[in-house]
């Protein structure tokens, strides 16, 4: 059973992609450690310094609708969170571009309706990736989540879509993608 425990940061308002990674870093190389240094810098003034978000030591992010919305195809939002040791994001819904990027990087973006209404920043959460259950250990509430699609799990197990495709190119099975 895969269980992850840790502290959550809970968004009080919409989290926008262009605030997760502010403009001057949009062209930076994609590198989880580098991208994590300034991830979330525009979301909250408390995060607006080097390793500002990372140093809080959160394991999860909890949000409402349209997490990482506002456009932007940049992958730094996801790699930045990965580098900041975020293991999963739970939200009512995700903006499609970053939802897609998260799948491609094997980063769990887990849909759990209204979970943000019953969590506070600093709460200790426990996520069971086998049954999708999320427990808020700080207030005893339990949340279910939308099951992860088999393809998404397969990409996650491969360590992301690049690895998934690399293997298929190397063994010649790439033509079978259907």
């Amino acid at each position: 059973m895969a269980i992850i425990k840790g502290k959550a940061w809970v968004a009080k308002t919409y989290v926008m992609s262009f605030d997760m990674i502010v403009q001057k870093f949009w062209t930076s190389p994609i590198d989880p450690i580098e991208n994590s240094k300034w991830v979330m810098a525009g979301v909250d003034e408390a995060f607006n310094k080097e390793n500002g978000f990372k140093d809080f030591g959160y394991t999860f992010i909890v949000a409402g609708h349209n997490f990482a919305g506002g456009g932007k195809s940049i992958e730094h939002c996801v790699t930045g969170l990965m580098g900041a040791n975020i293991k999963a994001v739970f939200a009512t819904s995700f903006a499609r571009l970053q939802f897609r990027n998260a799948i491609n990087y094997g980063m769990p973006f887990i849909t759990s309706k209204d979970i943000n209404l019953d969590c506070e920043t600093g709460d200790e959460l426990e996520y069971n990736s086998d049954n999708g259950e999320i427990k808020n250990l700080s207030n005893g509430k339990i949340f279910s989540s939308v099951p992860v699609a088999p393809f998404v799990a397969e990409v996650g197990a491969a360590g992301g879509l690049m690895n998934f495709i690399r293997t298929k190119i190397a063994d010649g099975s790439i033509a079978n993608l259907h």
Partner: protein
Amino acid sequence: MAMTITEKIMAFNSGRDSVVPGQLVWVDVHTVMTMDYLGKQCFKAFESLGAKTLFDRDRVICVSDHLVPPPTPEYATMLNEWREIVKSYDIPNFYDLGRQGIAHQIMVEQGHVLPGKISIGTDSHANTYGAVGAVGNAIGVTDAAIAMATGKCWFRVPETVKFHIKGEWQPWVMAKDLSLHIMGMMHWNGHLIYKALEYCGPAIDALDIAGRMTLCNMTVDLGAKNGIIAPDAKTAAYLQSVQKGDWNMIASDADAHYDAVYEVDVTNIGPTIARPDKLDDTVPVEQLVGTKFNKAFVGTCTNGRTEDFAIIAKILDGKKIHRDVNMICIPASQQVYLECIQKGYFEILVKAGVAIETPSCGPCAGIHTGVAGDGDIMLSAGNRNMKGRMGSKNAQIYLTSPAVVAASAVKGVITDPRSENW
């Protein structure tokens, strides 16, 4: 089995007879677009995959749009590195400074997008391609690199929401007004997330391709996966001289299933404005008449086309921009630029006191060519108005149509373009 146009495109381009929403398919992409901002990373990621060659170098489209002309030495260096890597792959369709345009404009006007096919690009407004009956979708570096290697991309087939638009377009009302009206009606944070939006009906049939591009362009800001308008005789006429490849007419089946159907009567829609910070905070222009602003902007992949400048020229002919307003116009491509010169629109604009810049994403991306400073109140015909989008977080952005921007720029305050005989 009855399918919507988006479902048909996903089925036919994945070698299937039919698909259902929720199904995961690997599709063949017709073209992959990348640009100066992320393009080098796409090629580097492609190189790391172990593929020997690009899937088709004629169908990897490279555009310089966000950073041209470079505003800083850092961006100039980045552009140089981008050029080197594009040249090293001998990409025939490289739209660099001098031949440039905003990627989405280039993709459509140069015929790299075709009805019934799927094109992807590393910029969120790739939804624009639906204007000619293609599935256009924004993706990240990873998806672009994989498509460059394999010609394929994965998709979850979206549910389709239909917007049936009827009625008569009123004078000075543009596709942008309908787009903003729908934004206010549906809200931008989540309600249409992951959906395919299909626009149809007599008021859509009446729209030119430029208007259809505006409408499909902003579906990304409704959260949608794609926006699409079935091809018709106007599409065929538009593509005739530019299309690169064959295509067939395609449309939704009459008995296709829709997740929801909305009907909007465009007769009742007037010029519309989104107030600062939120795209869905839209109001009829009447509510804001008299509001002061100091910067006016028309351009972008949403409203930087010849048809948009034609409207502006009609309003500005013989007029002067108000002394308290600075107005910048940026054509969406070199082709648009040339057309506007040839038709005399830019002569009218320059005489009126408009600054015209070379094609680029300009201040809409908050990078250069007239970004917002502290305290600026922008009246923009771009596509986003969130805090900091066009520069300073201490600026306000009102989003509206080119007609409202032009009429207001003459008066120095927000003005209803219907209030005068321009």
